[in-house]
């Protein structure tokens, strides 16, 4: 028997976590669909594509692995590549530890597996400082559940309807627009503006790096600049001598 307690999804923070994800979910769905279509058009058999979507659950790693799988690359090459593409998650996991460190390991890892990029971004926006776990955990699962559905359903649709969906335009751009809006929703103090500006420049300048390592370069540059700008003396408030 489970201990008698209200189910997680009844908690108001669960609903809030899902609600905060609703609008962004459209962008996630666009990318999920795109990834599904890419899997359908690769040489991966449909069954394996479904398996990949359901258990790998990491779009950029999947997209990078597809051509390697088709080309029959050695397993270690495929895995090492995915590891590099996923390195940003290692950085995020250090952030999650602040919030979920006290939970048992099995629960921490279950949560980590489902935590995608946008979950971390939205979670930090909701809780800049760690709240009680009784709020943090349901909020987390609310956002994660919606994100999972918004990714997996379009991804599966893409796998099965691949040829019917035009990839030429619009779809990928829709995902980019959702992220663009989210970026501007997250911008606040000048340190965050500086961090974002530097991250953008670094990501473009380092785009030639393989394995999406430009994202890691951008994160490192943004963290450094953010910390630096935080330390600059604040501008004198307006209206005071």
């Amino acid at each position, binding site marked *: 028997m489970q201990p008698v307690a209200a189910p997680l999804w009844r908690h108001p923070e669960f609903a809030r976590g899902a609600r905060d994800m609703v*609008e962004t979910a*459209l*962008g996630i769905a*666009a990318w999920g669909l795109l990834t599904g279509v890419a899997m359908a058009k690769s040489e*991966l*058999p449909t069954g*394996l594509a479904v*398996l990949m979507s359901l*258990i*790998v*659950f990491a779009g950029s*790693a999947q997209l990078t692995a597809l051509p390697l*799988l088709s080309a029959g690359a050695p397993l270690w090459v*495929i*895995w090492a590549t*995915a590891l590099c593409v*996923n*390195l940003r998650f*290692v950085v*995020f*996991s*250090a*952030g*999650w530890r602040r919030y979920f460190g006290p939970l048992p*390991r099995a629960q921490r*890892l279950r949560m*980590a*597996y489902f*935590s995608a990029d946008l979950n971390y*971004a939205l979670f930090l926006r909701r809780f800049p400082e760690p709240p009680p776990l009784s709020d943090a955990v349901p909020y987390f699962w609310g956002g994660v559940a919606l994100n999972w559905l918004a990714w997996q359903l379009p991804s599966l649709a893409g796998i099965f309807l691949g040829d019917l969906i035009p990839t030429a*335009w*619009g779809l990928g*751009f*829709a995902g*980019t*627009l959702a992220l*663009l*809006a*989210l970026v*501007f929703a*997250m911008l606040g103090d000048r340190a*965050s503006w500086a*961090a*974002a500006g530097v*991250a953008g*420049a*670094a990501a*473009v300048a380092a*785009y*030639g790096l393989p394995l999406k390592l*430009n*994202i890691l370069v951008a*994160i490192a*540059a*943004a*963290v*450094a*600049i953010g*910390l630096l700008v*935080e330390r600059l003396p604040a501008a004198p408030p307006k209206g005071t001598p």
Partner: protein
Amino acid sequence: MSTWEGILAIVGLALITLLTRGFFLFPDRDLPMPHWLQRGLRYAPLAALVAVVAPELFLTQGRLIDTWRDARLPAALLALAWFLWRRSILGTIVVGTAALLLFRLGLGW
């Protein structure tokens, strides 16, 4: 690649998802992390988002675009204006995508 090799590759990829997303959540003991680094990690998700968006807007085939007659630029600007005005992500996507199609199909940018 045989089916079994494919399954093995995919199971390995799933474990890599768990390994990377859970990396600092595996150990039970708290990791000594300098305070400044913990603060700095606040900028990581923002930076990761920008790092995905910026190349999508400013690069074509890995090169910086050399013309302003690129449908993505006005579309992104209009979408951004809409977002700052209405704060709706849904509207942002609709406006930006519509603008992209208009500039592409209407003006051939």
